[in-house]
């Protein structure tokens, strides 16, 4: 979806800035908003570019930095931690060869921490783009990663 088309979905009122940004980034392959796009968005909502930047840097799901096609977010809070989320993190790090905050060199995966996903009754949990995975074990994580890799090829 082009930026113009996406913007038309929202009334040109600054209260829709956050949702428009999130919508657009969700659809983009690198899940980020560029400087040029910020200029355009600011103009559409009639706000300053610095306001758009401050919103983008404030919310965890918005970014100015390009990310992988699949953003893997792992919960590191206590209910997941006491259900062995560390083993899930370790599996992800080993399999992907990256640490949280990094992106694989092929641009396929980014790894990030996230706040509680509200899936504590099925801990540990991760999120890949818009999909949540629960009741994880290292083996399940390996299988999930393979699925995503196959999807690419």
């Amino acid at each position: 979806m082009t930026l113009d088309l996406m913007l038309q979905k929202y009334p040109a009122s600054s209260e829709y800035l956050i949702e428009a940004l999130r919508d657009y980034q969700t659809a983009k392959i690198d899940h980020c908003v560029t400087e040029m796009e910020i200029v355009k968005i600011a103009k559409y909502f009639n706000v300053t570019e610095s306001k758009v930047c401050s919103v983008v840097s404030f919310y965890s799901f918005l970014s100015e930095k390009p990310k992988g096609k699949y953003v893997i977010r792992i919960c590191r809070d206590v209910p997941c931690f006491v259900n062995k989320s560390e083993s899930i993190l370790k599996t992800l790090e080993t399999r992907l060869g990256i640490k949280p905050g990094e992106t694989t060199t092929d641009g396929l995966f980014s790894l990030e921490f996230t706040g509680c996903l509200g899936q504590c009754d099925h801990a540990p949990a991760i999120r890949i783009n818009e999909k949540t995975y629960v009741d994880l074990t290292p083996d399940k994580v390996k299988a999930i990663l393979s699925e995503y890799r196959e999807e690419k090829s």
Partner: protein
Amino acid sequence: MIEKKIISKRFDKIDPYSIADYIATGGYKPLIKAMTGERIDILSEVEKSRLRGRGGAGFPVAIKMMALAKEAASVKYIVCNADEGEPGNFKDRAIMEKDPHSILEGMIITAYATRATKGYIYIRCEYDKSIEIMRHAVDEARKNHFLGLKIDKIDFDFDIEIRLGAGSYVCGEEFALLESIEGKTGRTRVKPPFPTSVGLFGKPTEINNVETFANIPVIVDMGGDEFAKIGTKSSTGTKLLSLSGNVNNKGVYEIPFGIPIKTVIDELGGGVPDSRALKMVQLGGACGPIIPRYLLDMIIDFDRFDEFESKTGSGAIIVMDDRWDIFDILLRNVDFFKHESCGKCAPCREGHNQLARLLRKFTDRKATVKDLISIESLARVMHQTSLCGLGQTSPTSIISTLRYFREDYIDRLESLEV
């Protein structure tokens, strides 16, 4: 049977996508009763029920409702806080995914009683399924004339818009949430004025938690006096609990207030797995106290929780067995709040950095007596001087462990010299 299913009575029994199922099980009857039939005084029923907010702080709901009703503004808002981000809480997700219309009905009744003109539901964007179900429910309610113009043919217009977060815990704080709906960064405002006088877009606004709204149709249906007979003197009604951690049956359970925590863990949770010993329990979420085994006879009750000076009343119970080190748990809590602090006030912005630095000295067994004194006083200062609930409650796990697990801190000191 210690469960009492009032709010969760339709869970897994109706199709959440079917308004017909909701109506067939008595849904929207309280709304019609309140608006047309017996013309009961909603405000006085809620007052008699002594309902307290279910988001954690336990503020009397009737006070907010009456404050909003008194405002003469032509535009007034009702906001449902569905930004459930406190680690260990997932009961609002359960209501949204299993009985969405109960929330809408509570909002519509509240709007009618206070003459509010528009409602917002702010849902965190991570809750995909909740969002889908709530959107569908709003559409269905509109088609059936429970939302929109001239609701149920009387002279009352009210509609609801769903708004989504973008990954920010602090947006669950009421003023930060309003800022976020307005399209801004989620930074709290200085109060007073309170939202019921100057809220969303500067208009009078009442903000309640998901579960609080779901209680309103129940109160209208059974009457405030009957409702107040459930639970304890200070905490009426039932509470949805989010039970998680090292426990056999994790999940959402509904109990009347007054049940001991231990009974919940043993009877509903089925105890700790792998025959391990329970070491500690965190109440309310990451911002709540961590208590030892010998305090588990404590009943679930807002007044009983008051001694922790935190927002313990959201109903999260996180069980931890004897494998876990207190400092690993504390560091996770503090790192979470450090990331989620909005940065507006210094005690919270700087405080979490310093708490994390001091805690790491304890995990590394490099702490001194001076560090112990510093962490204690810093936690207190943050609690007393932070601008919003985040910084005021985030040190609770430290304050409580300094009280109940002090020997663990002493054990980690490099030396006992002052």
